[in-house]
């Protein structure tokens, strides 16, 4: 990178916020995927004006610019594919306002999701999106990927809580979208267009987030089944009853086995060897208890080997911690893991679960599967104990088989972690020609120089 550019960056953000050391570049080269690419420089702005100035400079100089939050993404979205400037937004960490009477908060991009949740809980308010990495991921990253979480079944995803955004265009303009009220219909809905665009259209610096009242009571329920298909069918049964649990998840016995490999894990001993259904009901005390009772009955009727509904002390929290840490724990089970992400209509999730199990057997692969089965979402994770190269044909066949099956059951393929880099080639399969072309034109109108997070979401120069 030219010395003149570095000089300007230092003028904008201050010399201490411009990092060139190999160690810093390495540390900002990847997220929670194993893809990595070194940026040429890391810039850590402290305010919106600095973000805008960096963006303007990058457009002028045609330098690739990749935004990054906590780097916990699972799609390679923050990997600086073409080098250039890596913009670390964790320094924008102010909760600007919490307006309790109007139920919203104005939050900067670098605020950690759980910090926001805790801050609003003091006022008995609730910010529902709870991605598994909520203890450390940032609001900016949540907006960029429209992150969801365990409670998205009842409460929806990040997109559903966005009233407005403060964004910086790649050309350096600071812009506000949306507003501070739920109804806001002036012009196009740019807020929801930018949300989920993974830093390819604009840089999110702050968000106006809708809050709701904190539920009075929560009940956790855990049921064990002989196999994943049965657990998944129990989920479909719950949903067809018209119940609205806040969480309804499954994990198979392979996943449970991996969790039990860690001493002192938070699962109760009876869970061992079972495929699990994990649920939470919430609301007013009696309603939540009654709903949990209904769920328990459905589980028993669906062939559950055990159902547990009462907990001591921190047991519940530890159970959910295990669930949130599952994906990372699976990483330990083999040096290489291939994470898939498929969704089928809720009524077909049992079928999909069985197909995944069979696929593993057919190709001689260990597959651990978990997911938010209630909306048909499953994450089959292929656990490899050998370098990927040796198993490539089997993995390729299994992945293709699973994806084809999901599509033929009326499902979709990349649903949760974003398209990012890992799945950029996939848009071509999912989206028809005109849709892709429209996206390309949109991208060009936001980012005429094409500097923003190049190579992501829309297949571009790199992946083609």
């Amino acid at each position, binding site marked *: 990178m030219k010395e003149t550019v570095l000089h300007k960056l230092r003028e904008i953000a201050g010399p201490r916020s411009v990092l060139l*050391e*190999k*160690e*810093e570049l*390495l*540390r*900002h080269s*990847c*997220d*929670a*995927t*194993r*893809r*990595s690419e070194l940026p040429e420089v890391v810039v*850590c702005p402290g305010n919106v004006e600095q973000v805008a100035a960096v963006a303007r400079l990058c457009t002028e100089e045609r330098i690739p610019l990749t935004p990054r939050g*906590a*780097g*916990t993404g699972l799609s390679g979205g923050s990997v600086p594919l073409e080098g250039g400037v890596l913009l*670390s937004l*964790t*320094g924008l*960490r102010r909760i600007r306002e919490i307006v309790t009477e109007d139920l919203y908060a104005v939050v900067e991009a670098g605020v*950690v999701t*759980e910090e926001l949740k805790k801050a609003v809980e003091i006022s008995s308010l609730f910010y529902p999106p709870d991605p598994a*990495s909520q*203890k*450390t*991921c940032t609001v900016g990253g949540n907006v960029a990927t429209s992150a969801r979480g365990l409670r998205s079944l009842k409460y929806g995803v990040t997109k559903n809580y966005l009233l407005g955004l403060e964004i910086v265009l790649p050309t350096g303009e600071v812009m506000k979208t949306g507003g501070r009220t739920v109804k806001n219909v002036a012009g196009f809905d740019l807020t929801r267009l930018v949300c989920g665009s993974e830093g390819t259209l604009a840089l999110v610096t702050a968000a106006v987030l809708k809050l709701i009242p904190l539920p009075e009571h929560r009940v956790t329920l855990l049921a064990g089944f002989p196999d994943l298909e049965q657990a998944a069918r129990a989920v479909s049964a719950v949903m067809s009853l018209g119940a609205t649990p806040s969480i309804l998840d499954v994990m198979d016995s392979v996943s449970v086995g991996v969790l039990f490999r*860690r001493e002192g894990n938070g699962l109760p001993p009876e869970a061992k060897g079972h495929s699990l259904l994990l649920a939470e009901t919430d609301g007013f005390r009696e309603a939540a208890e009654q709903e949990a009772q209904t769920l328990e009955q459905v589980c028993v009727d669906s062939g559950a080997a055990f159902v547990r509904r009462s907990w001591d002390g921190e047991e519940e929290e530890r159970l959910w911690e*295990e669930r949130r*840490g*599952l*994906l*990372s*724990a699976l*990483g*330990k089970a083999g*040096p290489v*893991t*291939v994470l*898939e992400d498929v969704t089928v209509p809720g009524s077909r999730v049992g079928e999909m679960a069985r197909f995944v199990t069979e696929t593993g057997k057919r190709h001689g692969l260990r597959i651990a599967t978990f997911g938010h089965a209630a909306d048909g979402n499953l994450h089959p994770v292929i656990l490899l104990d050998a*370098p*990927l*190269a040796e198993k*490539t044909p089997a*993995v*390729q066949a299994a*992945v293709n088989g699973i*994806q084809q099956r999901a599509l033929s059951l009326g499902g979709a393929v*990349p649903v949760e972690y974003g398209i990012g880099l*890992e*799945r950029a*080639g*996939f848009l071509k399969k999912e989206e028809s020609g005109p849709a892709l072309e429209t996206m390309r034109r949109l991208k060009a109108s936001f980012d005429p120089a094409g500097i923003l997070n190049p190579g992501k979401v829309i297949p571009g120069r790199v992946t083609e």
Partner: protein
Amino acid sequence: MSVEPKFVYREPLKDVYPRVGKFSDEIVKCIKCGLCRAVCPTLIETLSESQGARGRVSLVEAVLDGRLSLSDIFDERISSCINCKACIDACPSGVRVDDIILAARAELVARGRLPFFKRLILRGLLKRGRLLPPVGKLASLFQRVLLALSPKGSALRLLLPAVRIDRERRLPVFASRSFREQVSERIVPEERKSGLRVAYFVGCSSNLLYTDVATATVEVLKRLGVEVLVPREQGCCGTPMFNAGDFETARDMARANLKAFDASAVDAVIVTCASCGLALKREYSAILELDTSGFSEKVMDASEFIVKKVGVEALRALPLPRDGENEVVTYHDPCHLKRGQGVWEEPRQLIKSLPGVEFREMPEADRCCGGGGLYSFTHYEMSMAVAAHKAEAVRETGARVVLTSCPSCIMQLRDTLARAGLDVEVSHVMEFLYRRLRANEAATVLETSIAQQRV
């Protein structure tokens, strides 16, 4: 989704870096999910990716596969870890970040990267402390000269110019006689009512700086009817050495200590320092690869010993003050006791068993205080930043006494709480027990003498 290899697999350079090479399987377990970001105290203070557990592991990984050299910055990032082990608790894959970081420090030391200041302390002062018992005396003499010059004198202050720390820092004073010089090698209680015998591993801090902790421990055990051996040939546990990556010196210390203790002759080897305890229990074998079978199983924190072997009932049977105003206390978990050894209930059980004491849990009691032994000297600014959260937590409880089980935490808490303007006493659990016991004894003596006068 394409299934081409997502990253270039590089054969680790195990021959070049044998110390970290040993951990290559452990390093691979880290999938960089970043959950440790939420708990790593240095990342929380700096918000810098390379100052967190995930960052440090990936830097070591980069060195091991040849993408990075052992640079000054690498050295700095690896040194700035406090070894609080919070990341290990948070890690869903159970990656032993602590072992990986110590191994990386060993690689640095093997290449001559042990700063003069640390070498002086580790290989000069602490190591020789065992061979030259009067080291405390010398330090104390120095100190008295210094005391004459400054009212805030402590020989540790001599280090201040070397490490550029605050002149206002509150530091302990060297004892004029080390604890081990003060006591006999075998202390037999008047009544051996417990039938138990322990060997006491005193540790440098309790031997040279906080001799009250050691005295209190022996006195409490004596009253509980426990025989205490204080083996002469024991020395520094070696933690400061292996923590700095100097495994060789640490091994010398460990071997000497293993030789000094005949664990088969006692019911337990007790410690009053969380880090010493961790070294004896785990690190001698895990880090230094020594055979400690028959020894490490017997190592117990003093509070753990009293709860598990003597029983709190025996403690409650002693004359403890029962009247008067309740004393409000809280407890800080030393990292190396709670996460290091899984001991956190026992000290609380002890405290709660005392009449006239009200226990109040502080928020995040097991959050690192930033002390970390020598860390607070080499990284004072970071250390203080980490400590600030602790001061807030203590303030919230309204407790008048903060108890803990590690001299390093005591040093840090006294300094940081005084700076935060909190007027609280910071004591070791054993000191507190002894103080409560003595309060009643003193009262009893007084009453007796008054009664006698009346007669």
